[in-house]
């Protein structure tokens, strides 16, 4: 269908401005007739244009400028929500407590072994512990905790009439120490004459990187 745009414009203009029963109404009267439609339509257009061309772009620009600080605020809130300061303090305390149980020097390991010897003597056993291998071997790169191996030989002291019970007690004491000394090898041999010899292998954890707890 062929549409005449001029006819459409004329029809629209007539619809907008036609005064019923007064086809030759003067321009001012026709314009007044158009006011109920033209006024809100014009206001609508002006407002829409202001919104699209001025208000919205300005707001978008402002929002873009504010975005970094708002993102920072969101990030801080998220970090606070993820973990409370109290939880962080508790974790730090646990880390410190763990660190305190670990030796941080060779002298500490030697002292721990000496302490074990004293403990064995107290339980009626003659003991000799000595470290084996180098300390650096036991730790991976970037690890916080390293391990030092040690060997020990024990024999019941003269007068120890309950070697079996005292050995079990001694092993329990070793396991119950706060300082992490783990038994990795236990060999007990009794000869025909009833003499008992015990060999033990130990693994002593020590602190090799204290950055984690130093912060």
């Amino acid at each position: 269908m062929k549409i005449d745009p001029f006819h459409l414009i004329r029809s629209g203009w007539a619809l907008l401005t036609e005064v019923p029963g007064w086809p030759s109404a003067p321009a001012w009267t026709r314009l007044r007739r158009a006011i109920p439609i033209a006024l809100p339509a014009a206001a609508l257009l002006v407002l829409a244009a202001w919104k699209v061309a001025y208000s919205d772009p300005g707001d978008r620009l402002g929002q873009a400028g504010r975005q970094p600080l708002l993102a920072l605020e969101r990030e801080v809130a998220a970090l606070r929500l993820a973990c409370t300061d109290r939880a962080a303090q508790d974790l730090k305390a646990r880390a410190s407590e763990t660190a305190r149980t670990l030796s941080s020097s060779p002298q500490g390991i030697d002292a721990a072994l000496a302490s074990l010897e004293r403990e064995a003597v107290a339980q009626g056993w003659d003991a000799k512990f000595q470290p084996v291998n180098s300390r650096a071997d036991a730790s991976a790169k970037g690890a916080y905790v390293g391990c030092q191996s040690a060997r020990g030989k024990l024999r019941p002291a003269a007068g120890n009439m309950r070697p079996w019970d005292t050995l079990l007690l001694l092993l329990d004491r070793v396991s119950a120490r706060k300082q992490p000394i783990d038994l990795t090898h236990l060999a007990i041999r009794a000869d025909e004459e009833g003499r008992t010899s015990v060999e033990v292998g130990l693994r002593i954890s020590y602190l090799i990187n204290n950055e984690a707890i130093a912060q």
Partner: protein
Amino acid sequence: MISPPELENPAVPQAPAAPRAAGRSRGRRRSLLGIAWLGPSLDAAVFAGSSIQARWTAPAPVGSIEEFAAVLPEMLAALEFPGTETLLLLEHDQFIHRAEAAPSASESVARTYLRARVARHERECGEPVWCAQRMASARQDASFMLHLLPAAFFEHLNQVLAARGLDLARIHPLAVPLQLEIDELAAASEQPVLVAAEISGMTAILVGRSGNRPAFSRTIRASWADEPVRVGVEVNRSLLYAKQQLGTSVDRIRLLGRGPAVDAVRARCGGGREIQAEDPRPVAWLQAVARLAPGDPMNLVAGHLQGKRRKRLLRSGMAAACWLGLASLAVTIWSDQTVRRGERERFAAISARETVLRGDYGRLLLRDAAMRGEREFIQEAADRRLPPVPGRTLAYIAGLLPKGLRLSEFQVDWDSSASRWTFQAAGTIEGDEESSHAALENLQQQLERSPIQARFTEPPRTLTALPSPSNGPELFGFSMGGTLFEN
């Protein structure tokens, strides 16, 4: 082009219609001003329902709209018409009646054809207001009578009436009351009737059956007083034409006029025909037409008024849409501004503590990094620990050893490469071979079901006889080994 809402219905409504609402008062709404402007003669009457309230006849001929406008105040003063709705029964030089034979394929085809004819008329003579009257025909084609009134004439007339507060709601051609005359005259008969009316120097002729479409209508310039013979000839020619159209002869003639033309018609057409003569009665015609519904298809301005109503509705709709759109946009903008004001205020508050925020952010990042390290450290320290398996295993096995079984060797090792515990045990057991086997079997089962979950290597054990002391029980050496905490 101002067009009727639809083509004429075959059945002309006979029931009196309610007058159009005028809007001034309840009493006024019932009133209708009927104006019969037939050639130069002008008659008017005020109707209230079906009764005539007042009537008026112009003292002088009224030919043009200017003359009409000039006598209108006198008419209104005489009639004291309180309403607005106006009916016009019109016969005028500018009011054209044109017979058209449209294709009879369908009603829509006929309508399209007629619209095309009107469009052609519009191109040649300007925009009309029009209606189409379906005519009866013995032939197959669809006959119509187009009644075409220049829109400019209508607008001018409407303007004159509107200036007096009158609403020109209906314009009917003279053919409408003449058809009603036929309906009244031949109500009980199906025989066709010819009606001829004198209209101020003109003669209107219409032939039709009661309650049916007219066969044809024509208006000729022939005065009943000055050209009686011509009137007689034209009436006779109309009778012959009607016979062709209807296929039957017209035996009844009604003459609405006086003068020598009546005698001329009797002389030329009277053979065997019933001829009645009466005075023209425009007010009665108006009264009959006033009974028709305002939306009657023979109302020239029905379509125009419908269009006006449509335009009014469209205007109202557009105005409502514009105002609603404006209100909606205003609310949206206000809402946006409120939200953005809130955002700006929040941003201002955040900006005021930007330094604190940045400090907090750095501190929190450090705290999180430290926590990560602390967690890893604690986890690593825990992972490095080994459970006290050797001591516990030794204690457990010592509790299970049956009488007569002695351990001479016991060994537990942590295999770091395979991450598992292994054990070896060896010793002696007293008793015969069978009981020794059973005791060791029992020990093995207990260790397998125990919390240390021992699993023995194949063969699970070896048993070798040892020299036993004199007079002592048999002595066997045994050894066993396997893994611990294996599922």
